[in-house]
């Protein structure tokens, strides 16, 4: 249909009607939209059930990382200071979250399911150096739990590390 002279006037009616409709903005801090079950948020290091860390410091994650933001310095497990389940453990394990692109390659590369990407995305800091997360920060549980969308709706396979230890 070619434009008719009164189409602009009808446009005024459209904008006037929108005043009486409810806005579709979601007000963020009061309402947080649920993330999908496989959302790639902040990294988490995992532990075995007996308290030993799963990470052995093989640094396959650091090799896989496209942004080169993981720093792994391994050390040997001694008899009286045993941290992980293998021969060595990661003495220093740091991720620079200002470089990380949250692609999930480290999670795919890890042979022990030690590192996964969780659901936390509220990672703002005031100082740039505070964004370099050390091992104990990565081991910790997230401070705030993000609402997660219903896994049954999304046909998500349960990852191996969630059911096995």
């Amino acid at each position, binding site marked *: 249909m070619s434009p008719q002279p009164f189409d*602009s006037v009808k*446009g*005024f009616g*459209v*904008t*006037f009607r*929108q*005043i009486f*409709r409810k*806005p*579709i*903005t979601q*007000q963020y801090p009061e309402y947080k939209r649920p993330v999908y079950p496989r959302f790639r948020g902040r990294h988490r290091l995992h532990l075995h059930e007996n308290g030993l860390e799963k990470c052995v410091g093989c640094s396959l994650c650091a090799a896989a990382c496209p942004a080169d933001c993981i720093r792994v310095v391994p050390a040997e497990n001694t008899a009286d200071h045993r941290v992980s389940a293998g021969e060595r453990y990661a003495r220093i394990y740091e991720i620079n979250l200002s470089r990380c692109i949250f692609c999930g390659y480290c999670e795919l590369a890890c042979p022990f399911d030690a590192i996964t990407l969780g659901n936390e995305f509220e990672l703002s800091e005031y100082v740039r150096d505070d964004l370099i997360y050390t091992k104990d920060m990565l081991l910790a549980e997230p401070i705030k739990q993000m609402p997660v969308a219903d896994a049954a709706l999304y046909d998500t396979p349960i990852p191996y590390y969630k059911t096995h230890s």
Partner: protein
Amino acid sequence: MSEETWWVGLIEALIVPNLLLLAFAYTTWFERKLLSRMQLRYGPNRAGKFGLVQPFADMIKLLYKEAFAPSDAIRMPYILAPIVSAFTAILAFSVIPFGPGWTIDGYTVQGEVADVSIALILVFALGSIGVYGFIVGGWASDSKYSLLGSMRTCAQLVSYEVSIALAVLGVVMMGQSLSLVDIVDKQGATIWFVIPQLVGFAVFIVAGVAETNRAPFDLPEAETELVAGYHTEYSGMRWGLFQMAEYINMITLSALAVTLFLGGWHGPWLPGPIWFLIKLALFVAVFIWIRASLPRLRYDQLMRLGWKVLLPVATINAVITALLVVWI
């Protein structure tokens, strides 16, 4: 001149522009809220309840900003340009009557700051001086975008000034006076001039939207076209002054439309200034509604509309009004 004592006039002259500035601040709030509701989103609602403190937050931010200037900018005109624009915009509001005049305690208080017998010509003259602010601002900024933007702005403003003046001519003939007070009184006595002067009203609205650089005629401010036109190189409160000039021009034009066509402060059982404010708010809402609904006009479409459409219509309206006024 009326019998108002000089210090009552002085107090009125101090209060009304300050109320105008408060009205400007809350016009920005009103525009952001109404525009956003038409676009299915909330406006500012974080600063204070319903965002009511937002204008003050914006003002504080602008005052804190670094007021840089291009190194080759011509210093004095660069600083004076926004001042001239804002000054003439605020001054043009001072002749608009918002009430019938009151007698308090034996002192007469006028319904406007200054009752000038050629008030209408004064308003248009001040508008033309305001155009100087835009020209000088763009030229003194020593930047290509500013110069082009200000040239286009001033061509647009000058073109539509002619149409506005002719559209208002019909009202002047019917009101038999150039003074806004007399025109409002005539409307109270006979009929609101919007009904006989409907064509003039329509031309006034369209030319008025173009005069104040509001959408859909806001090509000088279109960021995709000219970065920001004449106020590209202004920051902080200097830019705030240009915005103030634009919004106060919008408020003054709405007030002028209310005064000339919609009967000023006349209305049943509520006091005069309240009706004036209601009609003014309605008009400003119409400006915002127009902004939300229409796409921007291209520069040649804008010029064509001003010279080839509005000017003949306004001229014919004035001629027909003149014939009817003489023969009826």
